[in-house]
């Protein structure tokens, strides 16, 4: 069973992270509400953190740096989610809609 040993090699983690990133890109392009786009952005951030963790586990001389960077990404992502939700609620109060096609006040 070759498949049972892949938890010990770098490329399996990289492939999973690439899949997460691709899912996030697809969601960002195809979702129509702002909340769906926020979820996709969280997926992209998770893919980036997973890459940092995999490289710091397998390749880096000092794995502390990659883990530190993942912690910082988590903090930034939490701040980003809070700000995005507050903006979203303000937008909903003004427009009564959260579909990104309706937010066209600045369109020329």
């Amino acid at each position, binding site marked *: *069973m*070759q498949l*049972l*040993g*892949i*938890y*010990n*090699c*770098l490329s*399996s*983690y*990289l*492939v*999973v992270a*690439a*899949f*997460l*990133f691709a*899912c*996030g*890109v*697809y*969601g960002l*392009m*195809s979702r*129509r*509400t702002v909340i*769906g786009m*926020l*979820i996709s952005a*969280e*997926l992209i951030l*998770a893919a980036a*953190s997973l890459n940092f*963790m*995999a490289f710091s*586990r*397998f390749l*880096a*001389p*000092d*794995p*502390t740096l990659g*883990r*530190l960077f993942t*912690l*910082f990404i*988590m*903090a*930034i*992502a*939490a701040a*980003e989610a809070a700000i995005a939700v*507050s903006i979203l*609620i*303000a937008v*909903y*109060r*003004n427009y*009564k809609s959260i579909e990104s096609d309706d937010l066209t006040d600045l369109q020329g």
Partner: protein
Amino acid sequence: MQALTCNVATPTLFSAEGLVGLIFLLTILMVVGGALIAVQSKWLVRSVAGLALCFTGVAGLYYFLLSPFLAMMQMLIYVGAVSILIAFAIMMVTQAGSDTRHRRKVSALAGPIGISVAMLFFAGFTMLALATPWQQFPQEQEGSTRDLGIALLGPHVLIFELISIVLLMAIIGALVHAQRGRTRGTGA
């Protein structure tokens, strides 16, 4: 398929390593299924549940990458805070139940283009990950939680303080933003 054989011993199914490998495959299944539900589901509540599933799987992957502390932080911050925050946002914005109610012609192309771009990204990154001869260096430190704490308060203390200022500003900014929207809404 040849590049994926990465010089590891292949355990049998009924040994300890085989069970660990089985759990790893289940974790990957959790990540992939959660991500697919999160981007594909028509209902936003289901998509948030898929996001939480995917983040739980990513925490399992962090555990496999030898850092249980990061796995715990992932569960606390992402599964416990961010997913719940998005779920609250969905509940507050009442009409957000379904994502594709009235589809317009402008964005009818967004699905196929998005799928092709995402496939392109996935294929490119996968080929890059499998074809690159990664060079391994000997690990000098083990990167334990103690090392993390020393690094946070030693050489990287400036970034740590900046992150806390960013978080404080995010909290105040979110409060001010929501408050302003409310007063305008009731005044009009």
